[in-house]
């Protein structure tokens, strides 16, 4: 059977169960509101434009935060790949930071930047930077020595060697690094917004929860999940697949 059809049947079954359970009051609406309530909350949210403003605000922060983390991550990654001393010192710190969920920085960030957007963006940057750093580092270290030898016999050295061989050869790692950085940054953004200030999807989620609007809570969760899936599956995984294929790295 076509996987799409399987998927549609699967989701239809879940929604049917959800709908029936709500109708027959197997659970209280405050525990899990009915699908209609969620749909209603989403429609209201889009009609009064709250959710649209939220989406714009969240994406603005994500763009700034992710952009910064990709730039900083690439810079740090090149440094770690090229300088043994940097790798032995700073490299250890990067590994340690990478194992810390970036949201734990929020209290500190609020002290430094205040209860505002900057604090959230800071957390997003921390979320994406280190995974990018580690990927770029590995990507540059893994460039086949054969490529470098071949380029040298063709008279390419120094900065040109980086520009024309090492960076292009590392592109699969840049793509993977970016995909992971996006995933970490997106999670960090939602956590940051949930715990700080709005507007933003995370903030609206908490706001709705505070007012017992469980329909909207679930609605926002669905939006977050859908965006995550679209960006990951439809954008990053496709790019990754075609790059790995062309670079001859797919198995």
């Amino acid at each position, binding site marked *: 059977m076509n996987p799409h059809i399987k998927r549609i049947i699967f989701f239809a079954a879940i929604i049917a169960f959800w709908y029936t359970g709500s109708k027959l009051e197997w659970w209280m609406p405050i525990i899990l509101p009915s699908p209609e309530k969620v749909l209603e909350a989403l429609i209201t949210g889009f009609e009064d434009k709250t959710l649209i403003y939220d989406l714009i605000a969240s994406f603005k922060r994500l763009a700034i935060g992710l952009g910064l983390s990709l730039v900083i991550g690439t810079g740090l990654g090149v440094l770690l790949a090229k300088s043994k001393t940097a790798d032995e010192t700073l490299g250890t710190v990067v590994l340690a930071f990478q194992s810390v969920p970036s949201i734990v920085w929020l209290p500190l960030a609020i002290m430094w930047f205040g209860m505002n957007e900057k604090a959230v963006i800071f957390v997003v940057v921390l979320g994406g930077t280190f995974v990018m750093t580690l990927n770029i580092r590995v990507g540059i270290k893994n460039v*086949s020595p*054969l*490529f470098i*030898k*071949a*380029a*040298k*016999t*063709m*008279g*390419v050295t120094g900065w*040109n060697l980086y520009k*024309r*061989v090492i960076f*292009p*050869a590392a*592109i699969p790692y840049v793509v993977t690094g970016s995909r992971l950085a996006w995933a970490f940054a997106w999670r960090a953004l939602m956590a940051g917004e949930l715990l700080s200030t709005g507007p933003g999807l995370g903030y609206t989620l908490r706001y709705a929860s505070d007012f017992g609007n469980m329909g909207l809570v679930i609605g926002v969760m669905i939006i977050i999940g859908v965006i995550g899936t679209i960006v990951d599956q439809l954008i990053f995984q496709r790019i990754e697949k075609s790059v790995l*294929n*062309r*670079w*001859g790295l797919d198995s």
Partner: protein
Amino acid sequence: MFIEISNVHKQYGDKNNHQVDILKDINLGVNKGEFVSILGPSGCGKSTLLSIVAGLTPASSGEIIVSGKKIDKPGKDRGMVFQQAALFPWLNVLENVLFPLKQEMPKKQAEAEAKKQLQKVQLSKYLSHYPHELSGGMQQRVAIARALAMNPEILLMDEPFGALDEQTRSRLHEQLETIWAETQKTILFVTHSISESIKLSDRIIVMGTKPGVILKDIKVEIPRPRHEHKKEMVELEEYIMSYLKKEIDKVIREELADESTH
């Protein structure tokens, strides 16, 4: 002499930090336009020798002079073809061959030159293909076109057909012979296949192992095209085999001894 290799030594430190001789007392002269094979069992240092001529590996002592100039780094006068094609996967066939020509000449001229080389290896129809879309033999032909594109005096080939199947290899031998005849390049060709070296070269340098030394310098007098002289080729093969047998036995014995001590 066009290429003069004099007193080249190469040593490596092994894992116990003992100096091991890879190459010892290598002296070899090659004339312009000559096709010279370097033949030897695995581990005899023949690829290292080629790499030293390419300027990719420094010699421990001794020197290599190419048309009067001492070699100390890679240069465009020496094109190299490796066992793996080493094509850049992010560039298509044409762009790969253009690679050494960028910054050398105007774009139009470079493209014309690259296309000319690709025509030589009969790949004109594959300009916009990417390396992963080509067979191993085709990739190796692109690599040859790329090396020829910068118009080197010398073509260094490190077991270029070693990873290919028999039929493909045989066709590439013919193409290489034609290219060599047309372009008059000097070719240094590293191989472990006796028949390959006989089929292609003017001279065969037979190397022994541990340390890598030149055992014999054999001039191949069989007229071309050589496939018309099967009998002479077989005779020469047997003659060379008698030299190499001792060396190959030595390698196998050592490998077996290694095995039993581990």
